[in-house]
């Protein structure tokens, strides 16, 4: 086989790859055009900033979910986990404020606890899935219920509010900007880049895909399957805790309704982005676009009163289906071939 054939092969593949990658991007651009057509204020700087900041929560969580799903798992507990972490964080900060004052120390203690809790909760999901050998769906359905009811219990059914004295210190984490972009957006960007590198440029990412693709092959290839799978849940937990850290200063409160349905949104973002639900193929870039698409849909619906409020869900459902259908293109074939 000649070298020129090689080169030809490479060139031929590229456009196919592009279509696949471009799918979610095209869907997002279409949505933006629709938004602008409905109301030019859609493109205002303020709105774009709001949109990006909002995407940060789901986006950061979805980056974690990309790892879990790529390695063949699923995590339904993220929304509840965010709620309980936010709750405990607030309780802790309110308690230490007397000792450490309302300064940065208290906030850092809160953030530290958030990270520890996220890692712990993620590890628990991973441990039960791998060592307990229980289907991830069941484990995380269980912990979803547990975390949700714990936050309700801590808040006594109501709302946990951050001490007003701390809010001033913590507020900038959500509301301030840095080089024109709000801090949550920066966090999102950093998480996305780190996630992309981790998935595409490190052995860990390779192992995630291998496990999702075929666990037995992974085992025969000297991969510690249980350890890698547990790590994906731990990463998911870490992402949830980061999302929580930028969520809490927004309203300074957590309740049993915090983070409801975030798990479905996160998974939807991942799938819209082109990651395969059954594992083996993951795309962080797609996930980011997926999160942006979901947020944009909600934003657009708030920008028009053309349709009855009650039908928001219908529009949302239709747009999601059409967005995925748009990018299906080559996908249908690719997926069929996989099975």
């Amino acid at each position, binding site marked *: 086989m000649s070298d020129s054939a090689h080169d030809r092969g490479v060139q031929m593949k590229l456009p196919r790859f592009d279509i696949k990658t471009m799918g979610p991007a095209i869907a997002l651009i279409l949505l933006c055009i629709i938004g602008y057509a409905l109301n030019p204020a*859609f493109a205002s700087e303020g709105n774009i900033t*709001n949109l990006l900041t909002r995407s940060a929560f789901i986006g950061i969580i979805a980056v974690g979910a990309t790892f879990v799903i790529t390695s063949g798992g699923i995590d339904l507990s993220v929304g509840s986990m965010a709620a309980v972490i936010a709750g405990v964080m607030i309780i802790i900060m309110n308690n230490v404020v007397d000792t450490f004052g309302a300064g940065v120390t208290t906030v850092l203690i809160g953030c530290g606890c958030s990270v520890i809790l996220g890692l712990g909760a993620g590890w628990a999901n991973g441990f039960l899935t791998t060592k307990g050998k229980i289907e991830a769906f069941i484990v995380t359905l269980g912990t979803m219920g547990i975390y949700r009811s714990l936050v309700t219990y801590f808040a006594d*059914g109501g709302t946990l509010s951050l001490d007003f004295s701390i809010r001033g210190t913590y507020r900038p984490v959500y509301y301030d900007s840095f080089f024109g972009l709000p801090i949550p957006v920066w966090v999102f960007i950093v998480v996305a880049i780190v996630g992309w590198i981790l998935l595409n440029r490190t052995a860990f990412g390779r192992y995630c895909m291998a496990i999702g693709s075929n666990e037995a092959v992974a085992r025969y290839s000297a991969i510690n399957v249980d350890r890698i799978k547990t790590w994906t849940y731990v990463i998911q937990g870490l992402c949830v805790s980061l999302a929580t850290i930028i969520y809490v200063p927004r*309203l300074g*409160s957590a*309740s049993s309704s915090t983070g409801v349905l975030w798990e479905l949104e996160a998974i939807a973002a991942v799938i819209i982005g082109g990651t395969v639900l059954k594992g083996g193929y993951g795309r962080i870039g797609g996930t980011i676009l997926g999160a942006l698409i979901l947020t944009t849909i909600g934003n657009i619906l708030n920008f028009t009163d053309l349709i009855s409020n009650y039908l928001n869900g219908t529009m949302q459902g239709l747009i999601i289906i059409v967005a995925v259908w748009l990018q299906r293109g080559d996908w249908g074939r690719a997926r069929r071939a996989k099975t």
Partner: protein
Amino acid sequence: EDKIKIGVSYPTPTHAWAAGMNWHAENAAKRLEALYPDIDIILVNSPDPSAQASALEDLVSVNQIDALVVLPFESEPLTDPVLNVKKSGAFITVVDRGLSQPGIEDLYVAGNNPELGRVSAAYMKTRLKDGDNIVVLRGIPTVIDTERFDAFMAELEGSGINVLDHKHANWNRDDGFEVMQDFLSRFPDIDAVWAQDDDIAIGVVAALKQAGRDGDGMFVIGGAGMKETIKSIMDGDTLIPIDVLYPPAMLATAMDLTVANFKSNGPVAGRYILGATVITPENAEQFYFPDSPF
């Protein structure tokens, strides 16, 4: 074992108002059981109408209750299940949401949803003039929300105040924040916000402050009587000048009345409608319960 068993069934608190109601109910249960050793109060909450129907079945078949205090999730779906409890001979107290068939309950204790909407609109009219713009953030699409909203719009009619748009913020702070952000991007001129609920109002205020549009006499009206809101009214905040009460203690009130049916001399029956009081800096103190989660 000849205790009088009173079952109390209500929706699982998923937002702060309901948690306040739960708090008042739990306190009432403790107080009443301490007061009357032969009274046994069983509190059960349910996450959805059909779970509540199941819970009612369980209260009859397992606990064999003598009286039921029920705050139905929704009127329609729980009419039949409550009727079944009634057939077992129990005394029925219905709270807040009336059943869709009259005459089942012995006692009815309720807040007033249309009144809440009406009072809010009436206040708007006192502060705004013809041509002023408001936006409305609604609750979860349910009958409660519809009743409040319809009464609000009816009261506003003919005043010349424009309702720019109304969206559902689901009695949720986060949704309130996001919907308000979008309203602010969309409408350059908003003079007031009806948030219908204090939770939504907190999100709305955060969005206003973020956008720096909380000055110029702009104000937000929530509802229900959250302790933080009442506190800030007491402190003379102008952004949320008043609140409209939807008493979270109504379930506790109903429990008191139900126990009174067994413990007082005369039978207790009839309808107790609690008003939608406007909370102002003058009367705020009496609605302030710092220990309640709401």
